């Protein structure tokens, strides 16, 4: 809400200083929570990227050309300044000194804290492909990662010669021609991000192939059958998928796979997963498993003044890698830092693929969750729908190629609604289509035709003309929606009504 002027003030010695390391989506949501609780002026954000926090998950839409780059920022720099938040872009943190409660930046600057939050995210894993890193230590110019806005900008530049406008200025989606040098691309990794990037490149008119080391696409989300459906769909969309194959070497001829193939390519995009970025925490001797281990208040198990949220955190032996749990953690942590009671109890993940002509929704972990499996597949149509049900509740699921009722299924999953015994199956079936008004002449006499005046088909059949209907029954004098039906009834009234036994079935009497 706008309105009240915001009074800026430096934190007084009594007020604690909150330092957030990281400027991603988790950090941005946490700052909003802190600002809402009046803690903005006590908050410092140390963000490595030069851009104010933006919506990272929309990057593939930017790549695809369906989302303006200028419409990515979650908040303007000015927004932070107006609320007293000290947002320091381009700040690389090199150490957390827990003994002196300071954070050290590159260039030896230190920032004191009372409470520090690690929201450092994840780093993309680099698969061991020879030739990606050249002898002089630089990256082969054909190779791109895809995690940050700068990665996205470089990729767009490579494929379109397009300079990405990161400001809030309008400017429509760019319509420039593809860069002539990029005709073929290979995406390494067949996960959610890999599929999105592959579709985006394909939509941009670049011949794209996918290399996935495991035996099917979306390996960590869906089963073999659904993976096969996806592979076929990708093939129909023009993207060849190489499964069970590892890229081993990048040469002048192209990308060599361990199955003997060489894929001719001008561009290699690495999307083969990521891992929690926990090097700072390790250096600070905090417990790090896969991620930084935190308790139900998102607090490090080692230090009551250190917290972690988002992709870098590990709660209850789980690291997530998705935005919605990160935002839920940010909400809980904002309460905790404001001195209120709040508990993070884990989060149900719904993963939705964002790509043109490719429909996938994954609820939880359908391949790991135990329960009764209800599934329906139509490989001919390219659909596979599966729910895992335990004690009447949907505990996981995967919808591929057909998202009907996805909104309803997601609600039942998120709210853990106890369903009836037929319900999971019915939710997977296509929705029954509603009948049209083609059967009006066959309607029985007691069927209501005009709800506004409460007039039945029989009463209308008893009339001679539209004027007669209007004057004696008042049908058509309200919303007017029944007028076509009334005309049809009047037009057919001369012909003798069908025998009752034949009225129930629409169409030709048998």
């Amino acid at each position, binding site marked *: 809400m706008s309105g009240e002027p915001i009074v800026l003030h430096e934190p007084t010695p009594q007020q604690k200083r909150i330092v957030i390391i990281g400027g991603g989506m988790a950090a941005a949501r946490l700052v909003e929570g802190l600002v809402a609780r009046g803690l903005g002026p006590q908050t410092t954000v140390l963000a490595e990227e030069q851009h104010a926090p933006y919506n990272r998950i*929309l990057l593939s839409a930017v790549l695809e050309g369906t989302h303006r780059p200028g419409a990515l920022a979650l908040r*303007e720099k000015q927004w932070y300044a107006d609320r007293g938040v000290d947002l320091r872009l381009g700040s690389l943190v090199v150490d957390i000194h827990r003994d002196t409660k300071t954070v050290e930046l590159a260039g030896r600057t230190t920032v004191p804290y009372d409470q520090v939050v690690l929201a450092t995210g994840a780093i993309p894993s680099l698969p061991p492909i020879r030739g990606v890193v050249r002898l002089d230590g630089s990256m082969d110019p054909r190779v791109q990662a895809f995690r940050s806005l700068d990665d996205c900008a470089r990729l767009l530049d490579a494929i379109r010669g397009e300079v990405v406008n990161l400001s809030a200025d309008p400017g429509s989606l760019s319509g420039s021609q593809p860069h002539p040098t990029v005709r073929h691309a290979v995406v390494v990794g067949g996960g959610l991000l890999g599929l999105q990037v592959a579709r985006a490149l394909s939509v941009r008119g670049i011949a794209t192939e996918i290399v996935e080391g495991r035996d099917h696409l979306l390996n960590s989300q869906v089963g073999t059958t659904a993976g096969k459906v996806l592979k076929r769909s990708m093939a129909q969309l023009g993207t060849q998928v190489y499964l069970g194959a590892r890229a081993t070497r990048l040469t002048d001829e192209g990308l060599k796979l361990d199955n003997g193939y060489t894929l001719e390519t001008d561009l290699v995009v690495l999307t083969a997963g990521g891992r929690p970025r926990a090097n700072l925490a390790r250096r600070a001797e905090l417990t790090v498993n896969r991620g930084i281990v935190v308790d139900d208040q998102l607090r490090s198990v080692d230090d009551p003044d250190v917290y972690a949220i988002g992709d870098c955190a590990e709660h209850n032996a789980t690291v997530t890698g998705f935005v*919605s749990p990160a935002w839920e953690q940010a909400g809980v942590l904002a309460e905790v830092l404001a001195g209120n009671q709040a508990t993070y109890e884990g989060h149900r993940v719904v993963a939705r693929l964002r790509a043109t002509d490719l429909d996938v929704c994954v609820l939880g972990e359908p391949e790991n969750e135990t329960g009764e499996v209800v599934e329906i597949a139509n490989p001919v149509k390219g659909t596979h729908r599966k729910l895992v049900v335990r004690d009447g509740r949907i505990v996981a699921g995967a919808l591929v190629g057909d998202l009907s009722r996805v*909104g309803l299924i997601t609600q039942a999953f998120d709210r853990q609604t106890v369903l*009836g015994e037929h319900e999971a199956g019915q939710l997977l079936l296509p929705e029954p289509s509603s009948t049209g008004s083609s059967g009006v002449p066959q309607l029985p006499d007691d069927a209501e035709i005009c709800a*506004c005046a409460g007039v039945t088909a029989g009463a209308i059949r008893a009339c001679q003309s539209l004027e007669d209907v209007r004057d004696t029954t008042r049908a058509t004098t*309200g*919303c007017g929606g029944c007028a076509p039906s009334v005309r049809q009834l009047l037009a057919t009234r001369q012909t003798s009504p069908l025998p009752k036994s034949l009225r129930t079935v629409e169409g030709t009497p048998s």
Partner: protein
Amino acid sequence: MTDTHCPYCSLQCGMTLSRKGPRLEVGVRSQKNKHSPVDEGALCRKGWTAAGLRGSRERLTTPMVRDRATGEWSAATWDEALDLVASKLTDLRENHGADANAVFGGGGLTNEKAYQLGKFARVALGTSQIDYNGRWCMSSAASAGNQAFGVDRGLPFPLADIEKTDVCVLVGSNLAETMPPAARHLDRLRENGGKVVVIDPRLTPTGERADLFLQPVPGTDLPLALGVLHLLDAVGAVDEDYIAERTTGFEDVRRSVAAWWPEMVERVSGVEAAQLRELADLLANAGKVMVLTARGAEQHAQGTDTVLAWLNVTLALGMPGKAYAGYGCLTGQGNGQGGREHGQKADQLPGYRMIDDPAARAHVAAVWGVDPETLPGKGRSAYELLDALGTPEGPKSLLVFGSNIVVSAPNATHITSRLADLDLLVVADMVMSETAALADVVLPVTQWAEETGTMTNLEGRVILRQAAVTPPDGVRSDLEVIAGLATRLEAVSGATRWQTDPEAIFTELRAASKGGKADYSGITYDRIRDEDGVFWPCPEGSGGTPRLFADTFSHPDGRARFVDVEHSGPAEEPSAAYPLHLTTGRVLAQYQSGAQTRRIKDLPDDGIFVELHPLLADRVGAHDGDPVVVRTPRGELKAPARVVTTIRPDTIFVPFHWVGANRLTNDALDPSSRMPEFKVCAAAVSA
């Protein structure tokens, strides 16, 4: 034959009334007067049968006083009844202060009555405790309109403008059933090649007219709007020039919607991302877009923010002020608009003036011939007023005009217990409504055909109802009741006496509204007759204002304001014990609390029912027509099931015209409008 308007909804369809022996007959007004732009001469069955209470044995024709000890009613003369009420009001004021007496009005009262009631409370009773059931109607839209535009007029354009827009989006409106003749404009729009979008948890007859129908979880219209704006900005479809020239505050809003991508909206609202994209595409490619909200979007603890979110969409597209485009609210009650402009709202004085504005107080006090210092300040809002009744800090008496609280208040069992704790409950009504039945004194009053007065319809068009028949013996108008009480309270104010003639009161109202936002000073009964209604603002010498905002908005800087809003969800989310969403609404053949329509024998009264989807019916073992029990944390209801495929499977619907629905509803209030959350709470259903 008398020209007048329908007694029910905010459409206020024109009609004629003719005496046929003892009966009163309703006719279509356009036969005589072709110019009937709102309704095109149409009426629904409620309008056609509106005269059915005339001569009904249900009409009250003598004041009734109830003995508290025995509960027995006895007839009283008007003098006895008014003397009794006046002496109790005086006693309460002397012993407990002026705020011990409270007044509750209605959105069905004429402008003259609303005005007079506000004046009566402030001058004769000296109480700040006055509010009305319009709070439960369109107050969220009013609050949003004031924030965004600086003025609150339901529709800033004539209703028939719908026909000439390109895309009309109805958010939480079932106008085909609640105001059927209005649906003609949608059909005309589609004939003209325009598109209709309907957003509702139920596929209603309005939704069946839609080119695109979205069925969200109740309480998620707000994130839908955020998602639409997200997509519009993503494709560069916002009107940057308009935003720069005519608005403020867009940058924060633009950034805030970056967090609402379609799949995120899908998860929260249950509306598929593809459908949201379809809606955004429609809007991005339309030259003229009109968004209309109604109770479905507004009756929430976040109702104001929900309206603001949709308003932001229209502002981003550069629509408000453009011909045949913009944002509007489809007001519900007959005089929901005028009722909120002339002083029956706790924080307002006539002319849509704010009661805490010294200049407003001085102006109105001068018209009323009193010292501004004597005018009370802001009182409690409707629900808070009722919630306080009979408590140590709250009022000890309540005078009710034009409202059936027992049926229409949220958390009704609790509110009924508050009424029972009063020292004095007085109800003016034409029939023994459920609320009147609890009163100490019931005063029989005239119905619409028996009285004259102005109404302001959903377009801000002031229209005139004219008396067609004399009232039954023993019945008085609300205006006479107010004057009778005021005189007994010795509240003869300096400049004016307590008029009972509607036109004389309207003249006074004109003066009181002069210079205010809702300026009626240029409107006269004759002009209304000649011009088929006059749109406010209409200062003297003005021709009225059918369309607002063409050149400027009503904030001092002339700009509209974007307001950054965030979704926080319904006050009560489903839980293991209450796993469903309950929503409430209306049916075609009944109106509001049904005090009138349930007593008209030509209208079908099928009673209360519970609408649920076959998937849910199968889950709980319910069968169409058999009773089911609905429970919420506040109460329970047993009623027949109606199994329909048109409702979301995770939602049940109960109409609110009968006692029952509002025993279930949640009394969580919108922080700005004080609107209760009628439209969503958590519920359980069992066979």
